[in-house]
């Protein structure tokens, strides 16, 4: 299928990205080409094929529900963009 600029704007919104006019133009051209190319998979008959959910044998991993020490709040403070009174600060959410 052909991807136009409106499709790109819609998908970018879902991905929380704001694209520049140049990016919108470039991506809609390039992604049309890429999508047309990956549609090659439609040649495959997968009517009796199961989806590959995992590639090596996996077992559920469970652990006891015990409280363990995690990363210190002081450590998190160091990597947070904005931190005050023990909390990460973000712009106002509710007026």
């Amino acid at each position: 299928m052909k991807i136009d600029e409106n499709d790109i704007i819609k998908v970018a919104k879902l991905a929380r990205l704001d694209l520049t006019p140049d990016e919108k133009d470039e991506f809609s051209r390039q992604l049309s080409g890429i999508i047309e190319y990956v549609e090659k998979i439609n040649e495959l008959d997968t009517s009796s094929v199961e989806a590959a959910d995992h590639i090596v044998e996996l077992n559920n991993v469970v652990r006891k529900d015990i409280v363990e020490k995690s990363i210190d709040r002081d450590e998190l403070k160091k990597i947070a963009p904005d931190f005050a009174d023990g909390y990460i600060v973000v712009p106002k959410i509710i007026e």
Partner: protein
Amino acid sequence: MLYKKGFKELSELLSDRKISSGEIAESYIKRINETDKTINSYITFDEERLIKEAALSDTRRSEGKALSPFDGIPVAIKDNINTSGIKTTCASKILADFVPPFNAGAYEKLLEKGIIALGKTNLDEFAMGSSTENSFFGPVKNPYDTSRVPGGSSGGSAAAVSAFMAPVSLGSDTGGSIRQPAAFCGVTGIKPTYGRVSRYGLVAFASSLDQIGTFGRNVEDAAALLQMISGYDKRDSTSIDRDVEIDSSKITRSVKGLKIGVPSEYFQGINDEMKTMIEGKIKELEKSGAEIKPISLKYTEYAIPVYYLIATAEASSNLARYDGVRYGYRAQDLKDLSSLYVKSRSEGFGKEVKRRIILGTFSLSSGYYDAYYLKALKGRTLIINDFKNAFSQVDAIISPVTTTTAFKIGEMSNDPLQMYMSDILTISANLAGIPALSVPAGLDSNGLPIGIQIMGNHFEEQKILNIAAAVEDTCEEISPNI
């Protein structure tokens, strides 16, 4: 010139007390300061920390408390592997100043052996690329020809080992990101079985495909480092609880009695000189007692569409965590929470990352999920079955790693589809989760390295290492003039 020594060689010299860790550190500091201006393989290289860690190691050894025979050897770490207290940027603006408060499982295993992080190596942003041109910190140059790319995404790790700026290094391989740069830079690179090495603390790109692996200037060195990082880690739910099974001191270097498959699909469209060289090496293996068997991996041509649909879908989900809230880059002048997410992401991610997030979000979005993502998962099953069938007939598979030698910087950067298609020979191993490596075969007439790929069945790293060492024994040693 200690920087020219290999990993195992350094370990022996240290154990015999012929050299100190401090001397190794000094040698690398000099070498990197001279050479990396040209190559750009390191994003973070901290001389002071290196000298301090080396001194601590020398004290341990003099007190008889060395943590292992490798205590005090510096190893380069790809900058998408978390190293506590050392910046881990993923070559992205969004993590340009991120200093992680924890260690990746694989790195932790190295620390337990007394290994020192030599520095953090350059990569395509979030490991998305095949040339290391998509780095916020500038491209890496190929040590054999600085007008060419080193391959990617682990281009910094491959170039550093190739140009004697590290004895060995860690990389990660989602679709060939270890094997392709190893081939382009003339070193050995191995991606183990999915689940063999912990992914805890490896910054996620495509979780069902990502795997940490190693680079070395010879098979044994790459194997020795892989052996160290392998093993179960309860913090990675896809980590496999079984013995390490890799022993670098027991590589047979023999192919006697082994059945080696040659898939016809992997020899189509590759450059003539490369084809001739690899076919020559296969003949030599036959003379050494291997049984060479033509095989078919008939779904190979579907690997790229399947891979790029699955990898980008997983990436779009994994990269949702970069929202400017808890860590990483945060945009300024925000009016509300939504603009915090959107502005931080839009300003923080580079173009290729955005392109892949968009593609992944598209294939997962309502109305397209069944036709693209689900269909790709079914295609993946067919590719897995292709290999199951092949390994019921042969012990290992031999092929080229790439269709060409290292390409020019800028040659493909405006054509993402062409760049994606250059991964055709490496991505299937990731889709099937099997171990695969690249070992140098020699140089072409332009003086550029050519690699050979050997793929094995799940958990049969040792077998492909044996074969790789046999290939290595038929080749002259190569190194760049830098």
